[in-house]
């Protein structure tokens, strides 16, 4: 089953009456690609995913303009389970695994909204192959897993719904570099199997490496967009998101300015 285009046009989202979180955002996730969204804290990245998944209501947010379509289907206005049933599934910010449920039960919960339950066992097998640590710990309470393992579980749980488009909200947040790398490889592997990915990341280097196209959100609007190669080369992105400075201003400290690190003698 080929996936279709996820398209967002002129999306405007407000929280309550006073906070405008997105103003006329347009963005596309082409079938079979990884698309990255970068942006500072509070830029509206999570809000974008909430709008797609239909969970703004949990935060008193509303879509006040624009459209969200997947193929020829309208997603805006749908309840979250209806969005999942159409193949668009989110891994929320902060993992949000069900800590009191076991690893197995978390995966089971992830499969409850799948368009069809047939093949659930095979899907589960594939996920456990992708994340062997989940197989080792399948009977444990999910709350006991480490941060990285929890992120794997969160991704695995979403894969149980057999998504055509996977929405990932800062999957490497708070993870050690090695683990972040590992998650990055997994995202590439998932994408290779045909799932389109909308990847939200603060780790711009990782995101631009994985993605074909990327967008930069700033205070609720798209400030920059283009192919990953174009964005990686742009001065602004290099300076603000990749931490590579051409000037001293705003860039990282020069090597000689850095305080010397000394190892604590045991």
């Amino acid at each position, binding site marked *: 089953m080929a996936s279709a285009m996820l398209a967002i046009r002129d999306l405007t989202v407000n929280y309550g009456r006073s906070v405008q979180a997105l103003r006329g955002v347009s963005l596309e996730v082409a079938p079979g690609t990884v698309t990255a969204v970068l942006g500072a804290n509070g830029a509206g990245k999570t809000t974008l995913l909430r709008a797609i998944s239909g969970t703004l209501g949990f935060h008193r947010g509303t879509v006040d303009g624009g459209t969200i379509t997947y193929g020829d289907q309208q997603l805006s206005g749908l309840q*979250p*389970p209806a969005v999942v049933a159409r193949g668009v599934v989110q891994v929320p910010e902060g993992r949000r695994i069900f800590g009191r*449920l076991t690893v197995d039960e978390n995966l089971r919960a992830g499969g*409850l909204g799948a368009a069809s339950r047939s093949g659930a066992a095979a899907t589960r097998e594939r996920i456990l192959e992708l994340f062997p640590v989940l197989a080792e710990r399948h009977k444990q309470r999910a709350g006991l897993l480490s941060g990285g393992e929890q992120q794997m579980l969160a991704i695995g*749980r979403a894969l149980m719904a057999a998504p055509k488009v996977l929405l990932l909200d800062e999957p490497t947040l708070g993870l050690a570099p090695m683990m972040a790398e590992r998650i990055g490889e997994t995202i590439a592997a998932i994408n290779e199997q045909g799932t389109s990915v909308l990847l939200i990341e603060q780790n711009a280097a990782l995101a631009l490496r994985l993605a074909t196209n990327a967008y930069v959100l700033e205070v609720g609007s798209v400030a920059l967009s283009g192919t990953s190669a174009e964005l990686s080369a742009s001065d602004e992105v290099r300076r603000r998101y990749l931490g590579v400075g051409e000037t001293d201003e705003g860039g990282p400290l020069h090597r000689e300015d850095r305080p010397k690190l000394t190892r604590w003698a045991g």
Partner: protein
Amino acid sequence: MTKFIELVVNGLSVGSVYALIALGFVIIFKATEVVNFAHASLLLVGGYITAVFHDDIGFLPALAAGMLTAAVVGMLVEFLVLRRGRTSDHGVLAIVTIGVDILLTTELVRRIGTDVLDLGDPWGSQSVTFAGITIPQTRIAALLVATVLITAFLLAFRYTTWGVAMRAAAEDSETASLMGIKLSRVSLGAWAVAGALAAVAALFLTVFPTPGLDRNTSLVALKAFPAAILGGLDSTTGALVGGLIVGLTESLATGYQDQLHFLGHGLSGVAPYVVMVLILLARPAGLFGTRELTRV
């Protein structure tokens, strides 16, 4: 010693009935975060239907009809009254359930009038005597039926799709909906199960040695509130333990009234509440709960 054992068995039996009520109360709270003050009236609905129909259709079908009606009324309360308020204040919703309770109870009390209704149970007032201990059959039936129902519920809660959806939604409703779990269905299911369990409890609250179902039955059902609260409002284990504690306390306080006379008259009536307050002083979230009552 004989007396003590009889009192304990009695207490466990009554306690298991309280546990049925408290369990329903707790699953509604887990699924919707609403404290359901209309629970006693659901119980009264179930008991009333059983009482009205047992003559014509027989005891078991009448009991099934009572369970079904209480389940449907529970779902209607959820659907018609609470659904719109999903995102609004849970405290307000709890107060709304008080209104529902008053409406339902008033109507039922009007219908029952001053009658004492028989629910048509097959046990009557017979007792079983074993090794010198005499226990009414109804108390044994209550203990067995409650045990079977509670076990079935716990197994379903743990192993079925419904149970997984229910627990996921109780832990994090937004994320559960991101998994495609339909929260409205989870909450309807909770109200239905709670109603059905309450109808069974109605039967066992009104069989021998109680004369039958009357306008005060819903007051008796209120004793399940301290059971749910002392166990922890969001804990199914808590509901079971709480039910048994209240049942035992009540039974022993009644049985040893004379010896406990120095504590004042009518101790058995207030004993469950005294125990509840003592437990809450030590553990504000209840024995097994994670949420303190002040947050409700």
